[in-house]
């Protein structure tokens, strides 16, 4: 194997790639070749580092140097100074705003200090398009151990003992889900990976698939071994071309290496994976809707029970897990359930990846241990509110979640505590809002989203959400009444209680939580026909203009 003096890890996630990281890689390779260093320095195209705010990023290994906001034209200087003369290019280092000091090492940056990267362990470290790099990081070792040394029951027991819960939003214990599917005897069973990441403002799953696709493939094969399935599907959004591209490469390579296909690790276990593309429907993240879509039909949900574990894809027992859930599986088998169990809180073990966005200084992908406080995420990792504005709320759980006000910033997050403050874990979107954001307008934004995405199968969701949206529109146009506020609450509760699937059962949450914590703002709109943040047009102008001021 070739030995390199330096490795230059260049981020090639969606956000960095759209900022010319491809040209950076091209220029680096050309420049190194021209100067005769191509045998000493390896350029590695990696997945997302998470610090999207400061992309594109180059990390130089083993020098521990972390360059931010690199432009293709900076490459010449990096090669000239860093590679040839061994001097760090100060100009491209990250400056910690609080300290007004340049920082060289990633580990010392406040954005990374409080993070614990388990699901993202390989993102920004290995080349996702090369299976050898994954294998070098103990990849497929867990699958080998499961098949060679463990019975399916032991694998399920290990996952149960770890306390891992579903990361897609529901939070159902993963081990139990596997056990239920295992117990339903059938010749044909299926494993499905739910990669239909539909929450606006969430990009955790995409980053894992782009940065470490093999971890998901390996975990699906482990799940297949545990429950007795030979076929897996990844249901992925058609809007994620880069993730699809890398998954296709990964599946092809895994087949070549005999890690997918027949007689894996010389056993009698067979497993293969196929991609299924979504076509733009938020409701397809709901598992029964997803199954209908995988079968090629309209993605409308079914009533549960029967649960997919009994009767799922083509009426066969099916286990549906989320991308991030899968990404945790291999290391639980390798390091043991006790190790995983020791991280997190009483009822929520391990870590959670959040897509931190909105009015926060450091937008990006962060992975934190369960039990960390919202304040730590927003202020320590996120670097506080942009432009020194005042914090107003943080929204978690996307269109199914709620807005959490300042008084709960010290909440130690886990599945339960977030529900107690009227929100939910959800899949991991975390949008920070400041004093310029109008909470009535925000809940209107979310309800318009669900109104649009409701599949129309059940009445409470189809009509209820439409009425909620109409009431909110009235309020933002200065035509709301006090009665409207009562109606919002009543109707919201009704939609929650009466809807068929998770979409309708949670769609009023943004309204109900903002009504609970920001009732004054609603009242100001209704009684004084005034939008305190100056966002809603309150019927003053002709045009239904500006949803938000710049």
């Amino acid at each position: 194997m070739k030995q390199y003096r330096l490795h230059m890890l260049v981020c090639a996630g969606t956000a960095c790639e759209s900022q010319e990281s491809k040209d950076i890689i091209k220029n680096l390779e050309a420049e190194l070749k021209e100067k005769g260093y191509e045998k000493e320095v390896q350029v590695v195209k990696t997945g997302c580092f998470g610090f999207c705010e400061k992309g594109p990023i180059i990390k130089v290994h083993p020098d521990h140097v972390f360059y931010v906001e690199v432009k293709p034209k900076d490459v010449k200087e990096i090669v000239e100074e860093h590679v040839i003369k061994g001097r760090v290019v100060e100009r491209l280092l990250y400056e910690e705003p609080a300290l007004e000091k340049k920082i060289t090492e990633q580990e010392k940056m406040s954005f990374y200090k409080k993070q614990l990267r388990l699901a993202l362990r390989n993102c920004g470290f290995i080349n996702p398009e090369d299976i050898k790099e994954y294998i070098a990081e103990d990849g497929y070792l867990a699958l080998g151990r499961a098949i060679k040394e463990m019975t399916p029951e032991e694998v399920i027991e290990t996952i149960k003992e770890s306390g891992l819960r579903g990361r897609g939003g529901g939070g159902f214990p993963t081990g139990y889900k596997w056990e239920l599917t295992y117990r339903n005897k059938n010749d044909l069973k299926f494993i499905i990976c739910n990669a239909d990441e539909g929450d606006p403002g969430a990009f955790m799953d995409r980053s894992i698939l782009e940065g470490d696709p093999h971890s998901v493939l390996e975990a699906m094969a482990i799940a297949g071994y545990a429950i007795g399935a030979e076929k897996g599907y990844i249901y992925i959004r058609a809007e994620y071309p880069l993730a699809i591209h890398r998954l296709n490469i990964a599946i092809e390579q895994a087949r070549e290496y005999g890690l997918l296909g027949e007689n894996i690790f010389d056993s009698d276990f067979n497993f293969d994976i196929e991609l299924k593309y979504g076509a733009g429907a938020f409701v397809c993240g709901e598992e029964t809707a997803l199954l209908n879509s995988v079968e090629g039909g309209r993605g409308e949900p079914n009533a549960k029970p029967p649960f997919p574990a009994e009767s799922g894809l083509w009426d066969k027992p099916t286990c549906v897990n989320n991308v991030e859930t899968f990404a945790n599986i291999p290391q639980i088998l390798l390091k043991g359930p006790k190790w995983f169990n020791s991280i997190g809180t009483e009822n929520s073990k391990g870590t959670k990846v959040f897509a931190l966005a909105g009015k926060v200084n450091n937008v990006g992908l962060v992975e934190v241990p369960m039990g960390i406080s919202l304040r730590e995420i927003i202020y320590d990792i996120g670097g506080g509110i942009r432009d020194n504005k005042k914090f107003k709320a943080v929204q978690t759980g996307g269109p199914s979640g709620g807005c959490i006000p300042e008084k709960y910033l010290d909440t130690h997050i886990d599945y339960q505590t977030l529900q107690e403050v009227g929100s939910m874990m959800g899949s991991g979107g975390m949008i920070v809002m400041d004093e310029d954001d109008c909470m009535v307008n925000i809940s209107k934004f979310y309800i318009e989203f669900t109104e649009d995405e409701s599949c129309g199968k059940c009445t409470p969701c189809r009509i209820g959400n439409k009425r909620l949206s109409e009431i909110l529109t009235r309020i933002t146009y200065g035509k709301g009444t006090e009665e409207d506020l009562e109606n919002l609450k009543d109707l919201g509760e009704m939609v929650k209680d009466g809807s068929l699937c998770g979409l309708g059962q949670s769609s009023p949450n943004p309204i109900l939580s903002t009504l609970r914590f920001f009732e004054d703002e609603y009242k100001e709109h209704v009684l004084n026909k005034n939008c305190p943040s100056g966002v809603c047009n309150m019927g003053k102008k002709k045009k239904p203009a500006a949803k938000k001021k710049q």
Partner: protein
Amino acid sequence: MAENLKEQEKNDLEKPLPKEKYEELEDYIDSLPSLEGRLIQILHKAQQIFGYLPRDVQLFVARRLGISGAKVNGVITFYSYFTQKPRGEHTISICTGTACFVKGVGKIIEALEHELDTSIGSTTEDMKFTLKDVRCVGACGLAPLIVVDDKVYGRVKPEEVEQILAEYR
């Protein structure tokens, strides 16, 4: 709806769809190991070949799979990715995810609509640009952002819209 259909029939009549494209689709369908559960996959391919899914193509797929045209149409209208109208030469996708929303994508939409004299979900008269909104692209670090064909423009300001469009005009 009836009006839409009429308009579409007119479109179909004006531009008979090339035989080679049907053959390409036929070859693709023949290459599949089985047809069970493949409708969405086949429609993705058909839209890639034809650019959109007019009535004739829908009926072609229905006959080929031995299912009703209504079922095919039902699937196409359910998913926002499929379109029954021809697209412009360039597609401008505007991210309307939450991060872009709070960072002021509303102003960008206004600027684009104004500049192109069309509305979201429509195509300009000269068939040059189609304007559509998409759910989160997942590059929230670049909010607000728009995607023209495959190129992403991040942290867009309303006054930059004209300049971006000029690259494609």
